[in-house]
Structures are given as structure tokens and as C-alpha cells.
């Protein structure tokens, strides 16, 4: 038996889990995200774009690791601005960065438990949540192995485990399939589809097939701006025979980029 607080049953007042208006974020001195408008609700959203489009910078800003230089960013109904109060947002976030560093002496279980503790999960809940996260990514056999003994794909999966351990309402994954073999990638897509049933997932990836297979929504950005947002089928419809690409989705992708560049006068 537990008590249910009034705050928990208060009606949800915000329409979007992630809402950015005119977002500007600097990466070093360069303005990597320049006036981006983005609205994401529950589901799996694939983030596509050429190199240097600002995908990683956008992820870092959404993960509240980087402070936006301008514009408005609202996560889970709370504004992310200079004034504090990030604790509540961060408790509902999960983030896997592209460059994923770790403490080599930790075992997989210790690592996920440490991250769960940092996310301020109640202490009694941590062991169960850790075991569940480790099983969901398929690392149950390696739970006692030290991080430095893991291969690249297993490390990535350990990173995904720490991102999902607190059942986040907003999950941000930057290139999560790097180093995964095709079978592991299929398992990962299953996991993504599961998580996308009741939370907002943003997956940044270079592989267009990953996006089409697992995502309910595609977000295409280029040079720090939003180029296109729609379903994978709509993406395919944008393309045609004249555009480069080995699959209908890739053709749609190159079609959209080309049109965006000609409109921008390039």
C-alpha cells in the first residue's frame, strides 16, 4: 500500500513533452542550433540530418547539459531557463550521449545503480529497477562484468540501460546503435517501440533504416534549423526516382535536403 499524492493526480496541463521555440544553442563559439522550433509528444521520434546539422548540440541542450543561448525550451511543462528548478525535469529524463564515458572499474550493475542513485530514485526501488533495465537491454549475463571488459556494442547497451533505468518520460539517445550487430539492432528497435508506447523518445541516428523501422515520427534538421517533421511514410512520399538513395526513405531524405538548400539560396 502506498499513498497517492495530489500532485500525481493533477491533470496534465502541457500538450508537448518537448517544446522548443526559436531555440539557439552554442557549441563552443559556433551557433550550432539557430532558431529551431520543435514540438514532440509521446512516441518514437527519429532525428536525422547531415553532419554538423546540430543534432548532438540539440540533444545536449534537451538533456539540460548545455544551457540554451536564446529562445524558449520547455520540457515536461517546465521552462528550462537560467532560474533553477531543473531537478524535477532531470528526474524524468534519460540521456545517452554520443561520446559515452564511464568509470572502468565499475561493473555493469554498479554503473547502472550509480546512475539510478544520481537520478535520485528512491533507494528501495533501485535494485529492482536496475535489474529490469539490465534485462531489457539484454545484458543480464554480463551484469557482474567490469565495464572495461565489455565490447563496444555491450558498452552501448549498458549506456542505454542507465538511460532507461528511471523509466523517463523523455528519453534522448544520441547514436545508440553504434557498434550493435544487426540482431542486436533489431532487439533494440523492439525495445524502442516498447518504450515509445508511453514516453517521448528522441533518437538521433545516421541510419535511415533505423528511423523508418522503429520511429513513428521523423524530424529532419539541417544547419540548426528544422527542415521537416512528419511520419516515415510522408518522408518516403517526398522522394521520387530522380533523387539519390538506395531506399525510398533515403530518396525522400535527399529530396528534402536538396529542396531546403535551394530555398535557402545555396
Amino acid at each position, binding site marked *: *500500500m*502506498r*499513498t*497517492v499524492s*495530489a500532485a*500525481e*493526480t*493533477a*491533470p*496534465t496541463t502541457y500538450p508537448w513533452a518537448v517544446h522548443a521555440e526559436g531555440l539557439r544553442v552554442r557549441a563552443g563559439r559556433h551557433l550550432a542550433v539557430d532558431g529551431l522550433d520543435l514540438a514532440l509528444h509521446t512516441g518514437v521520434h527519429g532525428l536525422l540530418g547531415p553532419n554538423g546539422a546540430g543534432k548532438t548540440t540539440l540533444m545536449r541542450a534537451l538533456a539540460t547539459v548545455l544551457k540554451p543561448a536564446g529562445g524558449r525550451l520547455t520540457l515536461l511543462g517546465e521552462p528550462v531557463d537560467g532560474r533553477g528548478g531543473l531537478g524535477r525535469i532531470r528526474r524524468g529524463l534519460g540521456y545517452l550521449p554520443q561520446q559515452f564515458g564511464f568509470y572502468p572499474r565499475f561493473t555493469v*550493475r554498479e554503473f547502472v*545503480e550509480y546512475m539510478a542513485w544520481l537520478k535520485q530514485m528512491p*533507494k*528501495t*526501488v*533501485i*535494485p*529492482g529497477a*536496475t*535489474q*529490469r533495465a539490465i*534485462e*531489457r537491454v539484454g545484458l*543480464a549475463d554480463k*551484469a557482474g562484468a567490469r565495464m572495461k571488459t565489455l565490447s563496444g556494442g555491450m558498452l552501448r547497451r549498458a549506456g542505454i540501460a542507465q538511460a532507461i533505468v528511471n*523509466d523517463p*518520460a523523455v528519453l534522448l539517445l544520441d547514436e545508440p546503435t553504434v557498434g550493435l550487430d544487426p540482431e542486436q539492432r533489431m532487439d533494440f528497435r523492439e525495445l524502442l*517501440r*516498447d518504450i515509445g*508506447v*508511453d*514516453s517521448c523518445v528522441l533518437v538521433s541516428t545516421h541510419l535511415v533504416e533505423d528511423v523508418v523501422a522503429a520511429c513513428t515520427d521523423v524530424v529532419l534538421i539541417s544547419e540548426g534549423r528544422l527542415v521537416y517533421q512528419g511520419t516515415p511514410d510522408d518522408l518516403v512520399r517526398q522522394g521520387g526516382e530522380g533523387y539519390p538513395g538506395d531506399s525510398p526513405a533515403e530518396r525522400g531524405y535527399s529530396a528534402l535536403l536538396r529542396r531546403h538548400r535551394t530555398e535557402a539560396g545555396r
Partner: protein
Amino acid sequence: MSAADEEELVRRTAAGDRRAFDELYRRTSPWLLARLRRRCADDDVVADVMQETYLAVWRAADSFAGSAASGSAVGWLWTIAAHRLVDAFRRRARQNQMPAVPPAETVAPAAEDEVMAGRVGQELEQALLELPPEARQVLRAMVLDGLSVRETSLLLGLPENTVKSRARRARLALREALS
């Protein structure tokens, strides 16, 4: 046979004692089966959930034993099982299979049960009786089973805002009935 024995069984399981684990299974699985069946009409799902739960206990008994200072072994056994059940329902929701929620049971207690006073407190029972069954279902998932709003919405196949409004109405009704 007392409750302390179950925590001791968990500690021995953590040390790799297979017999202690089997004993734990023997003692707790009938109760877990009965409880899960009242939340899910599909026996295959229930069997899968129980298998995953006990496997998790076997693999991670050490972590549970360390933190069992607060809460009983049976308490977190239910927590593991409840989360696995929600995960199974989530998978079905994704595959667009309707989750197998058992039909609402009869509302009025039989005469002999009314004799059993003071189980959860008569006023609370009376108040629970007066709630509409949908609100009672939401309350059971959140209060008794310890699930969050998101998990309750998956378990019962309802949108989150519906779960929240029913929970709010239930709280108001209970507060009125108990005051």
C-alpha cells in the same frame, strides 16, 4: 513459519543456495499466482510474468538482500512482478492486442463476509463499496499495487488523463466518506 524466514531465504539465495531459492518459490508462488490472476485474465501472460520475476530474484538476490532493510521480501517480490506485468501489457498494447483485464467482480459482499469487521476498517470498506468500479480499479492499481499513473494507464488500457481524473474523484469520495 514466520515472515523473517523469507528474508533469510533471500539472503541464502544471494549466496547461491539453490534449495533456499526453491523453498522461496514454494512458499510465495501460490500467493503471487492468485494475486496476478486477479489482474490479468490470460494465464500465459501470468506464467511468463512469474517466470521472469523469479529469474530476476535468482540473478539479483544480493542487491535485494542488501536493501531489504526497508520493506519485506514479499513486498518487493510483488513490485518486481507488477512491473513485469505492466511491461507485458505494454508489449501487447504496442502489438495492438487488447490487454486482458479480468471482468469486474461482483460488488456486494456475501452475508458471511460482512461479519468480518475491522479488516481494513469498516468505514474505509464502506467508502470503497460506494465508489464506482472504474474508480476502485484505478485506486487498487495505484494504492494497493503501488503503480504510477503511467503504469496504471498501461495496465488498465486507459488514457493517462482518464486515470488521473478517476483517481481524483476516488480520493474526493473517500475523503468525504471517511470524514
